[in-house]
């Protein structure tokens, strides 16, 4: 047996785990970057969320590989009839991790929930300003306006009171930023004068605890034997930070890691052909689209918009630009979200019909602008190329499009101001709720200048359906309403939806139980590895 002369007791335990190779299972994940820190409350990047995910749990969570909300630290919850009060009944006997500087003296309880939310919400909280104090997602999801109170009822019950009924609220609590921290740890670190340790060396209730982070190199976790869903099969979880995509795939093929995300699309063939590897795929929770600004003629005429939907060759774009890593889109939400309306048929590619419809609408010669973003986005690998392809298709039916772009921040601002006639953009979902797409991107409220409805399309029937769906927590009822809304969207055609990008996850055949998470987070709960 190896004798290790290391200071850290945790390291020694980990070392023993490695040494007894026959028993301890190690999973190496080749991650694509370094985390900013380990607190999802203050992070915004997927890379940082990935690094924190093994450590924390939330009140509710997204089911494996799905956008459905399932119990987490809360076993069950009640929603009042008026939709304003959510009462969470917390699991008993959940244990927090320990580390060199901290050992919990009690189990998880309601105090931890209140302390977690107060940090993000109350400007005068002792922790509010720690590590920069920017709680981006808590703010972006509208929580400060939505929350009226977060109160402990008793040790195992927490009550959230809202200012207005908002059915997607429950999905917000399943997001990364709502990870539950240990109040005891926060108090201890504050007392020791090192509050930032809460963000650098975190304590959670998750399936693994953090052992060590070698900056830009390796993150090591060890299994939490007391995890409330059961001790995981992987004893040692290791993230090997490998920023270059080709190097990541090389490591996978050489067996130095077992799971590696974000392959180059050009490498997919080779990876799929490798006998030792399996490649999982799933549509991302996103949509890329070309919006028509309905406030500018002739885009106010729905016949023109429908015609344009038939004038552009979507499949050619998917082949040329997405290189197969994209599924054609025709609804405003991706198929991974519940209430996706499968009955809607996409507009066919029919330039002749398009030309006829345009003539009918009295549009003979049209010159327009066509905005594209200068950066790569998850839903759009090369906006300029897409714009060029669209420009060519439009030219075939007698429409001249002038390509335009700005620096990303500027671009977004101007699109939101409605300066464009046609503009490319997209959206990545936050919480898997249909309202997070349709409400944010297509409601009347968002059509104001500066709002995210860049088609500036305000349809009362559509918006009314969304408002109703937000007020009730009954998922069956909501599904019905959203399906109707998608029909209106299809008919009115404020966008030319382009694609939902597809996420590919290559991994060793020895790995089983891995589910691709629609949100893009890489989750290892439930994963096992052979041998």
């Amino acid at each position: 047996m190896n004798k290790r002369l290391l200071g850290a007791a945790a390291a020694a335990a980990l070392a023993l785990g490695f040494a007894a190779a026959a028993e301890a299972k190690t999973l190496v994940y080749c991650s694509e970057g370094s985390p900013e820190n380990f607190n999802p409350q203050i992070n915004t990047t997927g890379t940082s969320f990935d690094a924190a995910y093994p450590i924390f749990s939330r009140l509710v969570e997204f089911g494996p590989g799905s956008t459905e909300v399932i119990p987490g630290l809360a076993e069950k919850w009640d929603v009042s009839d008026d939709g304003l009060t959510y009462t969470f009944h917390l699991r008993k006997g959940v244990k927090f991790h320990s580390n060199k500087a901290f050992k919990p003296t009690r189990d998880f309880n309601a105090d931890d929930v209140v302390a977690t939310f107060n940090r993000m919400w109350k400007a005068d909280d002792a922790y509010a300003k720690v590590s920069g104090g920017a709680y981006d997602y808590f703010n972006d999801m509208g929580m400060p306006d939505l929350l009226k109170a977060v109160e402990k009822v008793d040790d195992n019950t927490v009550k959230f009171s809202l200012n207005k009924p908002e059915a997607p609220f429950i999905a917000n609590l399943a997001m990364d930023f709502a990870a539950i921290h240990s109040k005891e740890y926060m108090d201890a670190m504050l007392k020791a004068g090192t509050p930032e340790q809460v963000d650098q060396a975190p304590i959670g209730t998750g399936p693994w605890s953090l052992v060590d982070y070698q900056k830009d190199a390796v993150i090591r976790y060890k299994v939490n034997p007391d995890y409330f869903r059961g001790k995981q099969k992987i004893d040692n979880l290791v993230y090997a930070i490998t920023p270059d995509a080709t190097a990541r795939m090389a490591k996978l093929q050489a067996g130095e890691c077992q799971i590696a995300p974000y392959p180059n699309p050009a490498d997919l063939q080779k990876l799929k052909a490798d006998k030792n590897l399996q490649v999982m795929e799933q549509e991302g929770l996103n949509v890329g689209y070309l919006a028509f600004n309905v406030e500018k003629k002739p885009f106010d005429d729905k016949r023109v918009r429908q015609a344009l939907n038939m004038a552009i060759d979507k499949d050619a774009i998917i082949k040329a630009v997405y290189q197969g890593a994209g599924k054609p889109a025709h609804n405003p939400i991706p198929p991974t979200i519940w209430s996706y309306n499968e009955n809607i048929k996409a507009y066919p590619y029919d330039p002749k019909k398009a030309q006829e419809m345009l003539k009918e609408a009295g549009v003979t010669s049209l010159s327009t602008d066509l905005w594209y973003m200068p950066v790569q986005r998850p839903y759009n690998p090369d906006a300029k190329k897409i714009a060029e392809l669209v420009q060519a298709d439009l030219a075939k039916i007698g429409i001249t499009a002038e390509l335009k772009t700005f620096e990303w921040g500027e671009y977004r601002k101007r699109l939101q101001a409605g300066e464009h006639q046609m503009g490319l953009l997209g959206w990545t979902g936050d919480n898997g709720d249909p309202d997070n797409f349709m409400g944010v991107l297509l409601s009347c409220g968002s059509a104001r200048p500066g709002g995210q409805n860049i088609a500036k399309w305000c349809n009362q029937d559509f918006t009314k359906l969304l408002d109703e769906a937000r007020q009730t927590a009954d998922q069956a009822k909501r599904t019905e309403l959203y399906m109707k809304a998608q029909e209106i969207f299809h008919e009115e055609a404020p966008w030319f939806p382009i694609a939902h990008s597809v996420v590919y996850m290559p991994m060793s055949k020895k790995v089983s139980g891995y589910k691709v998470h629609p949100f893009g987070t890489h989750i290892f709960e439930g994963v096992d590895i052979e041998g």
Partner: protein
Amino acid sequence: MLRFLLTRVSLVIPTFLGITALAFILIHLVPGDPVEVRVGERGIAPERHAQLLHEMGLDRPWWQQFLSYVGDVLQGDLGISLITHRPVLDEFLTLFPATLELSIVAVLFAVAIGLPAGVVAAVKRGSIFDHVVMGASLTGYSMPIFWWGLLLILTFSVQLHLTPVSGRISLEYFLEPVTGLMTIDALLSGEEGAFRSALRHLILPSIVLGTIPLAVIARMTRSSMLEVLNEDYIRTARAKGLSGRRVIGVHALRNALIPVVTVIGLQVGTLMGGAILTETIFSWPGIGKWLVESIGRRDYPALQGGVLLIASLVMSVNLLVDMLYGLLNPRIRHRR
């Protein structure tokens, strides 16, 4: 010598100020700010944007930010990273040993191969060996590092399983960072196989990083040797009957080395500035990659601190080289 040193040292302060000012200006000329770059499609309310910038102290006038920064630096405070919220100096010191280790090994590789190759090419001028060396060095100099590195990985690591793909040491070894140099730490830990693993992980990255310096050193040595070999004193030495080896090894090489040492010193300075591409491909956690990522994230304190620290290193190395040059070449030492 003393006067030489004093002159050089006195130039340090204005140089530093100049570098800091230049870095500051260039960094702030890049459009966007640390808040802006994190914002996705949703955008951000202008008030919140302004508030976050205010909390970072980025809404003060430029000259005020600059003076406040210089004041802090003079007290040894290089600021806090806007992204990780850890002190910039700590981040630099954590990552620098990796760059140092890689640079040293890369230069050793470049010198060990480049120097003899250049000497032999000069001595056997016009021969096949000479042509091969010159051709190879031209190729090495022109080759894109990224492509070269990935080619080596795909060949030697994936196909032939001779070398590891990336990283500094095999993941089974969890070492306490004592010096930060993986090879030394591996030796100190006493673990079986750790030192060997650290060395194996250095092979490909140091070859890739050392390729261009190798090419430069080989050419420089060759041309310098050719010049020296044409000198009168070499003809005299030969006429005196000294063996070829002694003429070349003792009389020619010592003189030929002078410009080569300067070049080697400059190469070290360049390499210590962070081998961004090599570090990215081989997942080598050094300062080059850190700096480039800081640009993308608009981490101003990290960028300014990083540039300042690297500039100090390069200046120190150049100073050393100049002193070494003086030692090697008595004519410089005794001038005036």
